[in-house]
């Protein structure tokens, strides 16, 4: 039941926030923090009490909803979703705290939307019924649209439309694909069901599988996003209020990645294997193209938005490498990117509150006035370029290494992204904090609230860089289970350590075998 409570608490919190919003601005904030914290505490208590990291579901809840159509309230938690939900709740608290001073109009409605988005995201991470999944998928969308459209920056209306249209259109394609999948299943097995577990292992002709998969892909790849379907992202990210940007970058994008791992790969094993070269190619293009555009931006938030495109390229690259190392890298990347990009958006927000611009050409030399902010900016720029010792390095290393086993060419091309990331990340530090002051700004350094938020993020990004094992261990069994029966894995499990990874690795090993000594 705890899984349902997680969502219900947030829903109740959102209603309460809306209602108390008329009484004063403090109530919605306190209620939001309380609701999310309660969730976090509950989750930590209950997840530590359940053992069994053998890849089965840690918690499973199935209630009847619309039995006539085989639709049920099926929520379940495994290591992967646990990691994602923890991340969501953690960043949820951060989002409320950073909006404390920034949002002053319609505070109740703002927090209503915020908690609704969080509930939707958690629903997405927990749903094992495709209808329910689609329901939560759409539930994230509308409140986010309001958040950008009401509390955003100067071009908020256009940005919110763009966001809405992209995600709505791609979501509908997914819905059609869900229906198609369900009907194909009905025609072969005779039962009408939306249940994920029952739909697994469905055999169908290759063309049909590819077609249905592409519906799912549409939704997930737009969300991730993949070049050339990424254009909603820079606008939405740069126009949203800080909390909106943080949630977008840190959490919403991850639902796309999660969808690939949870639904696309297990439901469509052979089609996803066939799609792998294209998928990896899209990943490489995303990495390089995103980096190139990030370098060209002068709007700080837009720049960070394009770095997200680049970093999410690693995710899709790793997903279609189909091996444990790459998948661990993908999970790490989701978390590391959430923290580091979230922190950079928070930084941009803090700067905007002080100097009322996002234009980096106006900034410069701010280190002198705000050394703490400068140090924070430096750390997260370094995280973004993948410096060892920080979480992003572990993520990129594992992703690239896993990809290298699958495709030497793709991994080598993606490595160029490391150089590109260096170029754009250092540009942030240079433009904002180094150089000469352009204006005689008298601005204050971070206050205590801001310092605490930043310090927590810094500690986390360093801790995960030096001790990534808790995350890797948590997500490991779920990943192994996902890949267990995948056709791209049939040549043997890489983690067993006795045989080569997938087909391409095998040929690479044969190549090396040819040169062995005798």
């Amino acid at each position, binding site marked *: 039941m705890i899984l349902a409570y997680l969502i219900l608490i947030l829903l109740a919190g959102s209603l309460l926030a809306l209602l108390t919003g008329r009484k004063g601005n403090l109530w919605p904030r306190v209620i939001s923090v309380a609701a999310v914290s309660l969730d976090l505490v509950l989750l930590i208590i209950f997840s530590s009490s359940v053992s069994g990291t053998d890849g089965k579901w840690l918690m499973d809840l199935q209630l009847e909803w619309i039995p006539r159509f085989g639709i049920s309230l099926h929520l379940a938690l495994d290591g992967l979703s646990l990691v994602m939900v923890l991340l969501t709740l953690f960043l949820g608290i951060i989002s409320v705290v950073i909006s404390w001073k920034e949002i002053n109009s319609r505070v109740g409605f703002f927090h209503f939307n915020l908690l609704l988005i969080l509930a939707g995201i958690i629903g997405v991470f927990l749903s094992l019924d495709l209808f329910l999944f689609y329901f939560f998928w759409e539930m994230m969308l509308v409140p986010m649209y309001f958040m950008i459209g009401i509390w955003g920056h100067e071009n908020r209306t256009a940005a919110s439309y763009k966001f809405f249209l992209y995600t709505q259109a791609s979501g509908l394609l997914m819905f059609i694909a869900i229906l198609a999948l369900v009907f194909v299943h009905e025609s072969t097995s005779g039962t009408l069901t939306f249940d994920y577990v029952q739909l697994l292992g469905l055999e169908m002709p290759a063309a049909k599988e590819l077609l249905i998969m592409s519906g799912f892909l549409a939704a997930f790849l737009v969300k991730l996003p993949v070049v050339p379907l990424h254009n909603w992202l820079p606008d939405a990210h740069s126009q949203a209020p800080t909390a909106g940007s943080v949630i977008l970058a840190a959490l919403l994008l991850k639902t796309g990645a999660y969808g690939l791992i949870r639904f696309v790969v297990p439901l469509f094993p052979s089609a996803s294997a066939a799609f792998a070269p294209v998928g990896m190619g899209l990943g490489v293009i995303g990495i390089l193209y995103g980096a190139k555009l990030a370098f060209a*931006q002068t709007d700080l938030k837009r720049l960070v938005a394009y770095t997200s495109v680049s970093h999410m390229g690693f995710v899709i690259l790793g997903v279609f490498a189909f091996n444990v190392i790459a998948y661990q890298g993908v999970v790490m990347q989701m978390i590391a990117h959430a923290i580091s990009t979230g922190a950079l958006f928070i930084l941009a927000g803090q700067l905007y509150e002080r100097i009322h611009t996002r234009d980096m050409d106006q900034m410069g030399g701010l280190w002198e006035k705000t050394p703490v902010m400068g140090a924070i900016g430096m750390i997260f720029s370094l995280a973004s370029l993948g410096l060892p010792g920080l979480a992003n390095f572990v993520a990129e290393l594992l992703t690239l290494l896993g990809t290298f*086993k699958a495709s030497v060419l793709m991994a080598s091309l993606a490595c160029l992204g490391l150089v590109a990331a*260096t170029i754009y990340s250092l540009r942030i530090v*240079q433009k904002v904090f180094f150089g000469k002051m352009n204006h005689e700004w008298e601005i204050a350094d971070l206050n205590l609230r801001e310092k605490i938020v930043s310090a927590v993020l810094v500690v986390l990004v360093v801790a995960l860089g030096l001790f990534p094992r808790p995350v*890797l261990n948590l997500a490991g069994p779920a990943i192994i289970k996902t890949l267990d029966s995948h056709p791209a894995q049939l040549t043997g499990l890489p983690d067993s350590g006795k045989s080569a990874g997938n087909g391409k690795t095998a040929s690479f090993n044969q190549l090396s075998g040819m040169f062995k000594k005798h």
Partner: protein
Amino acid sequence: METCIALIPLIPLLGFLILAVAGGKFDRKTAGYIGAGSVGISLVLALIAGALFLRSLPGVSSYSVSLWEWISAGELRADMSFSLDSLSLVFCIVITFVGFLIHVYSIEFMSGDEGFSRFFAYMNLFVGSMLILVLADNILLLYFGWEGVGLCSYLLIGFWYKEPENGYAARKAFIVTRIGDTAMIIGIFILFVNFRTFHLDELMLQVNDKWSVGSPLAVITAALLLFGALGKSAQLPLQTWLPDAMAGPSPVSALIHAATMVTAGVYLIARCHVLFNLAPVVMTAIAIIGALTLLIAGFSALGQHDLKRILAYSTISQIGYMFLALGVGAWSAAIFHFMIHAFFKALLFLAGGVVILVLKEEHDIFRMGGMKKEMPLIFFTFLAGSASLSALPLVTAGFYSKDPILWYSFSSVTGNFWLWIAAFTGAFLTTLYTFRLVFVVFFGETKLKPSFQPGKLMTVPLAILAFFSIVAGFIELPESFGRFHLFSSLAENTLPAVTVRETGYPETLFQLLSALIVFAGIYLAYLAYYKKPSMSESFEHGRIHRFFESGFGFDRLYDVLLVNPLVWLSAINRNDIFDWLNIGLARLTVLGNRLFSLTQNGKLRWYVMSFTIGIVLILTYMILR
């Protein structure tokens, strides 16, 4: 012993942590004590570890200690673990020793700077990362340290962040070395995919076991690692960042861009010597790159007017000698030259830094002069360093470290006459630019008066380094002088000995020749820059000089080939070409809207007309069907 090894890198990192978190709250004295003290403790620990290590020889040739499991995923596993053998011991002691002296020197040198505790925080982070690099027992941890020192180099080059040029130099250093690092990480991937481990010793065992000499994978992997080493050690074609790196404070140039970090490439190649031995092509490339680099950098040094840039090119050139030695398989000669070079080059930078500091940031040597009279102590220490750099025969350490390289470049089985000629010419250039510097700065008439005299915190480290620049060579004598090989017998616990071919020439002949060339160089410098300055007049203002000054125009070449196209490419597509898909779609919709709203014009005639046309069309279709 194990605790000792683990603490060597951790203490400076602890120092960094304290200074980074609470740096602003300390007064300068405390911050300086923490900064220099942590490296001092590290030095003591390294010496203890060294003593214990030597006692246990030849029984145990390496110690290792594992702190925690860093990354594990699938079959991948990398630990935070260190190991100490004779190679890492030499590096450890040099890093902590030279590092400690430079930290002490910096307390006074940086005393007037507002970023005092920030400086020491970065310096401590650097020392810690460098120690991780040389103590790492797996190649991933080595890469960790490798990137860490790169970061510190970036932070310290751009230490005076208000000048945009410093920021540019800092980014250039980071980006150029990162290009090399990216090649290196791909090399690491190849090693892992083939051998399923990152552990260095195990990797080298397996490499030796499974790859044959000249096998394509060995060659590719060695070439990729070499490219990483070229970036870090500022060798051709990735050398362009080092001269600009001189934008940082002088102690930074001394520690990072002369004594320690830039030799990381030498360390990497020596550490992976088993792999490199399997790739003779790459070994030849290393020797040739080393030879070319030492020549190009030697000529470029002749063309500089900025004191620190002369020393920077000199560093590139001396590392070229180390690469040459590595390339001909003279492993311990390369490491020995690294050690001696660390002493005299740190000394030269520190002494030069004093000159620049007391002359109020004057970098142009031709605006200096007569410093011998003004600051005799600085002069004598600088002279000791210069003599050692020029490898003045018999009395300087530089002679004992460089002479073997010259000899082995000819006499090693992979050496040849041309490599020797390059090294020999390089020796002449070295002497010439070094004594050009000495004569111009310290002799002649005084053009600028020093604003103050350096205190003990600066002069004592200089004197100590000068002492080592002279006497440290006696622990390793050339074959022709007698059998006294303290250093190589230590190093050869880890590294193979050089294989010498029968050349038919005695080593003494070559020593005599290199002695002669050194004196010739000094004499020419004396003539052209002291006795008859008119001699050098035409050179100093000529076209060749400008070519040398630009470092053979590599910067401009890269600007034209790489930087400008990339900047242009991002400038033309700033607004993201794919956005036109949306804009196009939106415009199409608006156009459609306008088009269809034309039909809604409220005129009855139009409506009747369109009805009629419609009916006619439908009827026609039905009839013809």
